[in-house]
């Protein structure tokens, strides 16, 4: 890639040299689960019969395209290991997020738990080889007490919980995440030290009763995909202004797949409104942006934000990217191309910011086992040739 001179100066040296050794954690790696018949062993027998009798099945992977964005362990591991550039991935079971929204709250909890169990066993979460697979365990938001119990249950047995690095929480209908409805879940997540992952379930703007988009009901997929950042923005404001970050002093949130450019204006605006209306929310004790910088991160596909390299650099500055962004959504079916795009995008940034986005911010927000990835990465850095980016 030919860089404008100003960007080369910003980066300190040429992009290709600078990007040769950094480690990556992909914080938004979609994974599939099999049909429900293969999940029977992970749920009570009566429930297995119940689903069999009714012909119930897990949700389809995608609404809009037939190409599979998710793969099984074998393919994923081979691809990622051969690439030699990815040290960790946070597995996002997107189907579980949607199953968690079924109106049958008890059935949703059973299926969600079965999916978690399946992924834990079949994705070898306990295997500490590279790349390390970590799971965002899904919970159903329809029964917060039950969800909280399942979070604590995994945590109670440390060997059983190994590899669980986050809680995937879909939004329940139009109840925004700051609502006290969710507090049992935040309480449990805080107690066990897991961050909450907020990721589209597919219901946003798609189903009546799902999280609504502003202004009206869009009809087409492109509309929904452009507009769904509104859902994340509304929930972020809700978390801050309802005082969730004060009520749960260690809670952390990872926003995946919602885009990120909206964050810039959202933070400016949130701080402005707080200065004018602090008296209405006196429990918001620091500027809203400070809660975000401390305890929220946004997973981006930097190569999708813009094709103009200079614009990407400007975007990173406006975002305070070293405090807000993590990587997510590598396309395993086109991994070389996907990694190349990441390298190009990150290569535009100063080394410190690059390392923050690729690795350190992810470790901060995931905490726990993700922190050990760095040590592994550093060891590997000493092995010439294993971590070269294009």
């Amino acid at each position, binding site marked *: 890639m030919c860089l404008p001179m100003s960007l080369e100066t910003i980066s300190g040296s040429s992009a290709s040299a600078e990007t040769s050794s950094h480690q990556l954690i992909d914080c938004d790696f979609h994974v599939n689960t099999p049909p429900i018949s293969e999940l029977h062993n992970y749920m009570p027998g009566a429930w297995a019969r119940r689903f069999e009798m009714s012909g119930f099945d897990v949700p389809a992977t995608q609404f809009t395209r037939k190409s599979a964005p998710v793969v099984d362990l074998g393919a994923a591991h081979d691809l990622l290991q051969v690439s030699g550039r990815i040290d960790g991935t946070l597995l996002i079971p997107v189907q579980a997020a949607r199953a968690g929204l079924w109106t049958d709250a008890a059935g949703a909890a059973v299926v969600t738990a079965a999916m978690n169990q399946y992924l834990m066993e079949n994705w070898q979460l306990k295997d500490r080889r590279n790349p390390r697979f970590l799971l965002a365990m899904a919970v159903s938001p329809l029964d917060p007490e039950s969800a909280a119990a399942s979070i604590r249950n995994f945590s109670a047995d440390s060997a059983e919980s190994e590899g669980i690095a986050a809680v995937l929480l879909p939004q329940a209908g139009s109840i925004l995440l700051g609502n006290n409805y969710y507090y049992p879940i935040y309480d449990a997540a805080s107690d066990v030290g897991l961050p909450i992952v907020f990721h589209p379930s597919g219901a946003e703007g798609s189903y009546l009763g799902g999280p609504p988009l502003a202004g009206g009901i869009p009809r087409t997929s492109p509309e929904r995909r452009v507009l769904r950042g509104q859902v994340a923005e509304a929930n972020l404001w809700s978390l801050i202004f*309802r*005082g*969730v970050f*004060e009520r749960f002093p260690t809670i952390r949130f990872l926003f995946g797949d919602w885009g990120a450019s909206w964050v810039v204006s959202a933070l400016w605006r949130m701080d402005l409104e707080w*200065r004018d209306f602090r*008296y209405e929310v*006196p*429990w918001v*004790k620091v500027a809203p942006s400070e809660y975000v910088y401390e305890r929220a991160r946004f997973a981006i596909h930097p190569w999708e934000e813009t094709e103009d390299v200079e614009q990407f650099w400007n975007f990173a500055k406006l975002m305070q990217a070293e405090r807000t962004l993590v990587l997510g959504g590598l396309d395993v079916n086109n991994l070389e191309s996907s990694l190349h795009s990441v390298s190009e995008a990150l290569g535009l940034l100063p080394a410190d910011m690059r390392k923050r986005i690729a690795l350190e911010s992810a470790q901060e927000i995931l905490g726990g086992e993700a922190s050990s990835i760095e040590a592994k990465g550093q060891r590997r850095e000493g092995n010439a040739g294993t971590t070269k980016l294009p």
Partner: protein
Amino acid sequence: MTQQRPRYEVGSVDDFELRKFTIVKIGNRSIGIVKTNGGFYGIANRCPHQGAPLCEGEITGTMLPSDPDTLEYGLEDAVLRCPWHGWEFMLSDGSTVGNTSRKRVKSYRVEVEGGCVYLCL
């Protein structure tokens, strides 16, 4: 002998109505002096946010930092709220309530002596 800072007589105590600013102009400075139940205060008549005539704002109390979903009212007569955007400043030192901004208003000491009110620069 310490040098006395200049002070200006701005009226007798009886001239001041509770919570009603008297504006004095000294050079190019516009300064409001006000009597509250907590005493006399002097503060620059210009909001550091966007330059509003701050002393046209209300002297009030406000919500104290509190736990989520609870309200606690306090600081009665200690807070000046800007008439334009509602920014709240402590009359005592010109800082924003709740540290919402690093900007602060210049505050001035006011002395009462022999029934006269003096603004100290």
